[in-house]
């Protein structure tokens, strides 16, 4: 092959193609100042070396407190800037410290959510192929229509109108990306539940009312506390407060109560192992991932050397504000425990379990149930 062919490329004939050249522009081809500087050097990794998650996430959202020398260049008439510290009452010495313990970036979030989708769909397909539904207690089918399906609204409300706004507002890209992934867990789960509802409508065309969940969500007394709680979080504006109210208070006392203590335990007692498995997907996502990042995020605020105590008092105030709504929501669900034909566990036992876990969670964070609230 001639030297021309190597350096200028060759084609078949007259077509115009770019002249690809061998440039020897690979790492190590020459040694000069900076030629070995092959890691992002503008942040301090949490561990010894930066993870890929850190490399693709840290400081993509700039900050006038760090390098943004010209400041935010667009804002609002009231003086708020692009990411305004006043959007939360929390104060932190360094907003760039927090790392998502789940290390979520685009690749992991698609793999994890696709796995959840596959688990959900394969479980349903397997159940259908074996027709396990014929052995279900028929009274349970109505519970699935009236109550299990209704939970989808809570997930939809939190995902679309709590976590989506929260991921706009937090003070670092690390916070906002973790919250954005949380948002998608909720929205996907809401849709998972309704698509399961669609399947059940086809499997039980006479017994299962596929759309009654809308009426239940809006008017059934058992659910009005849950809806009120969700709507009030939606209307709050402090991104850290809404994440706290949703993931620490509501999810712990109401979400886990309904998913883990009711749906996952009552379904098998009625011959339905499928629902327990399906609801378990979102329960696992909450406990393993969403609660994990929330706890780390709050710990970073609570353990701040300068503002930690101030933040603790602030969060105690949030507990006083939000606990009554979530307690009312949880207690409001109590009648559902009596609606089923089989009661494997009483409401008081169920509630006692989530209450105990909730108190452990507060203790882990250095918080406590406010004196004026009885749970």
């Amino acid at each position, binding site marked *: 092959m001639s030297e021309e062919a190597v350096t200028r490329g060759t084609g078949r004939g007259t077509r115009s193609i770019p002249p690809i050249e061998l*440039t020897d522009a690979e*790492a190590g081809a020459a040694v000069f100042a900076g030629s070995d500087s092959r890691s992002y050097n503008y942040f301090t990794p949490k561990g010894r070396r930066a993870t890929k998650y850190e490399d693709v996430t840290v400081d993509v959202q700039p900050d006038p407190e760090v390098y943004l020398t010209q400041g935010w*260049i667009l804002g609002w008439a009231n003086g708020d800037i692009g990411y305004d510290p006043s959007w939360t009452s929390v104060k932190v010495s360094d907003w760039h410290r927090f790392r998502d313990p789940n290390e979520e970036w685009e690749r992991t979030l698609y793999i994890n959510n696709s796995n959840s989708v596959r688990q959900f769909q394969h479980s349903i397909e397997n159940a259908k192929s074996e027709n396990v539904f014929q052995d279900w207690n028929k009274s349970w089918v109505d519970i699935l229509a009236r109550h299990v399906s209704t939970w989808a609204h809570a997930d939809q409300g939190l995902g679309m109108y709590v976590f989506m706004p929260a991921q706009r507002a937090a003070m670092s890209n690390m916070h906002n990306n973790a919250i954005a992934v949380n948002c998608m867990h909720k929205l996907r789960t809401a849709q998972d539940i309704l698509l399961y509802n669609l399947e059940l409508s086809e499997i039980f065309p006479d017994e299962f009312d596929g759309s009654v969940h809308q009426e239940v969500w809006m008017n059934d007394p058992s659910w009005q506390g849950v809806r009120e709680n969700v709507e009030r979080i939606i209307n709050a504006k402090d991104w850290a407060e809404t994440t706290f109210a949703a993931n620490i208070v509501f999810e712990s006392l109401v979400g886990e109560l309904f998913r883990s203590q009711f749906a996952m335990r009552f379904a098998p007692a009625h011959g339905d192992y499928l629902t327990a498995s399906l609801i378990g997907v979102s329960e696992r996502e909450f406990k393993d991932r969403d609660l994990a990042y929330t706890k780390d995020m709050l710990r970073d605020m609570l353990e701040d050397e300068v503002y930690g105590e101030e933040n603790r008092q602030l969060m105690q105030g949030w507990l006083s504000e939000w606990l009554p709504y979530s307690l009312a929501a949880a207690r409001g669900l109590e009648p559902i425990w009596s609606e089923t034909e089989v009661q494997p566990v009483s409401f008081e036992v169920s509630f006692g379990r989530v209450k105990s876990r909730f108190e452990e969670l507060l203790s882990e964070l250095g918080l406590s149930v406010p004196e004026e609230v009885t749970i």
Partner: protein
Amino acid sequence: MARRSVTKAHNKIQELSWEPTFVEKDPKYKTDYTLTKGSQKDPMKQIMQSYFTMQEEKDHRVYGAIDGAVRGNMWRQVQPRWMEWQKLFLSIIPFPEISAARAMPLLTEAVPNAEIHNGLAFQMIDEVRHSTIQMNLKREYMKNYIDPAGFDITEKAFSNCYAGTIGRQFGEGFITGDAITACNIYLQVVAETAFTNTLFVAMPSEAAANGDYLLPTVFLSVQSDESRHMNNGYGTLLMALSNDENKELIERDLIYSLWNQHAVVDAAIGTFIDYGTKDRRKDRESYAEMWKRWYYDDYYRSYLLPLEKYGLKIPHDVIEDSWERIWNKGYHHKVAQFFATGWPVNFWRIDPMTNEDFEWFEHKYPGWYNEYGKWWEHYSGLSEPNGHKPIAFEDTGYVYPHRCWSCMVPCLIREDTIMDYVDGQWRTYCHKHCHWTDTVAFRETYKGRPTPAMGRMTGKREWETLYHGWDLADIQHDLGYVRNDGKTLVPQPHVIFEKEKMWTTDNTRGIEFQSPNVLLNQMSDEEREKHMEEYRQGFTINASL
């Protein structure tokens, strides 16, 4: 999932929405538009269950290609001229991407249509995808390209470089001010529908021609998500158009968005495509030709014009003025010249143009050599450190420009420059449309109607102000644009990788840096008028140094 069942599933998930009754919704993000609940649908029928697995498959392809590039050592064939511009481009673009994710709740609060909200949720997480996938691409460049300096400081450099700030408004525009202005018109209707074509289709084509097939792999995968986003924007635009009260605001926002993005995106991408390539085939499209195809024909004629029947008043003059700047006034040629003038405060290298480049430019842009050729010859002659100063501080005849207060690109087409006393200071603008943007659009009223939701320009808008009176070497240290030996500069006016040919702070010490805007405000009225008159006359490049 079969198409029929997707339709059924999509209909089903509409049951998830409800109207709150326990609280009266008080949106955090406001709009001056009036939108009533509409019947706009999401023809893409997006549902999570098919979305995640589809995206996962797209990712598999992207990461497979990255493995292939690393194993096949793609960097033996990439053009340094091209890769160096990626230090700037890829420092900027992940921020607009993530800003688009952050922008979505502005619309969920402003647009009373739950079906559109569902589409916005997919867009939100798509944008997280784009931002992090692009950061990862840049990481691969840093690890595998011959000169990682500039990639290694990427987000810091994006934050403190004048060029980063110009690009940053593209993202900040998505997330601030009036919710519909920012997220619908500026982001979806203009940025995503018009300019992603040049960003994500033209750039990959040029990358491939320069031996880089990773950028096409990543950016065409990104672009495959954009059609869903354009669709989201179209539905909201139709809702806005259905109310006559909105028409003046749409008109305002289209002028602002089309002009600002022309000023910002054409400046950057025009430079990357025409000055960052080594592919000088005469039949290869120039940026102007790409603009005509992707923007003028595909966007303006095929997308915008048909909307006139719905009452959309299109600012035809803004589009024609954009073309006038690109074709007749050498907009991106002047931007490239400015970037190269400013090389000591960049964080990437700029390769001199050669005779082969001159020939191509003259072929594509007749008259190019007469206006720019001599200056590039001076640039080439001054590219290696040899006892002279950087070109900006040698007497080439070039006059360092004032900066536009609105778009923050300098006022490079000198005769179009406008000077005005605004908000207690003298400001300069690159064009009458940029002057209008600051003095008319971003204000508390528009055509007599209150516009309390409209955004405001903030920040230290002239970068040079930060360093007025500083020594150039101190600026470079302050920016962090000095390599790890403590003196060799990150930026170089060439792509030679020999240490004795690299500039250091020893070569830049003792040069004072000045801010044109500070000086302008220090002048007497008479001096200022005279100065501006001379500025508008332009300059002549000296035949020799």
